[in-house]
């Protein structure tokens, strides 16, 4: 199944004339290795619930899609790594350090993306709060120092 072309399933004789149609058992025997390649066992294929084959075929399609997606994703990471390192590879470049590679993998689901965004916002807020707090501490310290100096100045 899968990559097999339809004409591969209906072989023709050398002269180009069509072979007689396959018998039921010949079709079953011919398709058995295809389904075994999809992960079905011999017993499941021959003695199991016939509808199992539908689930195996759909699962195989999903697996192929996922593999394709994984390959694409890996390509993306390689591409990004190349882009990050590219500045130092350029001849006569003054850059001495590559752009740091992404600290975390891409968010694959919307939920992941949302959580990551929330986390980033939280970190940014904490950083801002720390900056404001540091500034307020500095102001308070200066103020108290000033007040301490005043009585002596009198």
């Amino acid at each position, binding site marked *: 199944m899968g990559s097999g072309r339809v004409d591969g399933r209906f072989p023709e004789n050398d002269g180009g004339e069509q072979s007689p149609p396959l*018998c*039921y*058992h*010949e*079709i*079953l*025997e011919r*398709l058995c290795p295809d*389904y075994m390649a999809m992960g079905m066992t011999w*017993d*499941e*294929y*021959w*003695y*199991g*619930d*016939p*509808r*199992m*084959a*539908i689930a195996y075929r759909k699962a195989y399609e999903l697996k192929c899609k996922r593999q394709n997606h994984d390959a694409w994703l890996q390509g993306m990471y390689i591409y990004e790594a190349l882009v990050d390192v590219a500045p130092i590879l350029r001849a006569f470049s003054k850059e001495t350090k590559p752009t740091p590679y992404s600290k975390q993998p891409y968010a694959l689901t919307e939920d992941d993306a949302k959580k990551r965004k929330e986390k980033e916002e939280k970190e940014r807020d904490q950083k801002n709060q720390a900056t404001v707090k540091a500034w307020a501490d500095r102001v308070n310290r200066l103020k108290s120092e000033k007040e301490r100096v005043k009585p002596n100045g009198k």
Partner: protein
Amino acid sequence: MNKDKIKVIKLKTSDGKEYKLGYDRDSCARMSRKGFKIEDIKDAPIIAIPKLIYGAFLLYHSDLSQSQIDEIWTEVKGKEALMYKLVELYSEPINSLLEEPKDDAKNATWEVVE
């Protein structure tokens, strides 16, 4: 192999015995190797129908003789409807391998035009 989930027809005879009729790929292939063709039901029913019936007993009652099966069959009411059901069950092992996609929005459509 667990055969519990294979679609079967339950047949109860007058003496209270219960028989399960059905096909898996193995029994279908065995029938086909012995020359059974589903098209023959229409073209040569006298030969094909008994073969379809004997084949239906292969899965769970392979120890039954042809005469015993014949005896059971004579008791059956609604033979024609049961025959249709057996044809449907016989086709399932292969239909499940060649089934067309159902829920794909890109399915091609067809119609008969006069």
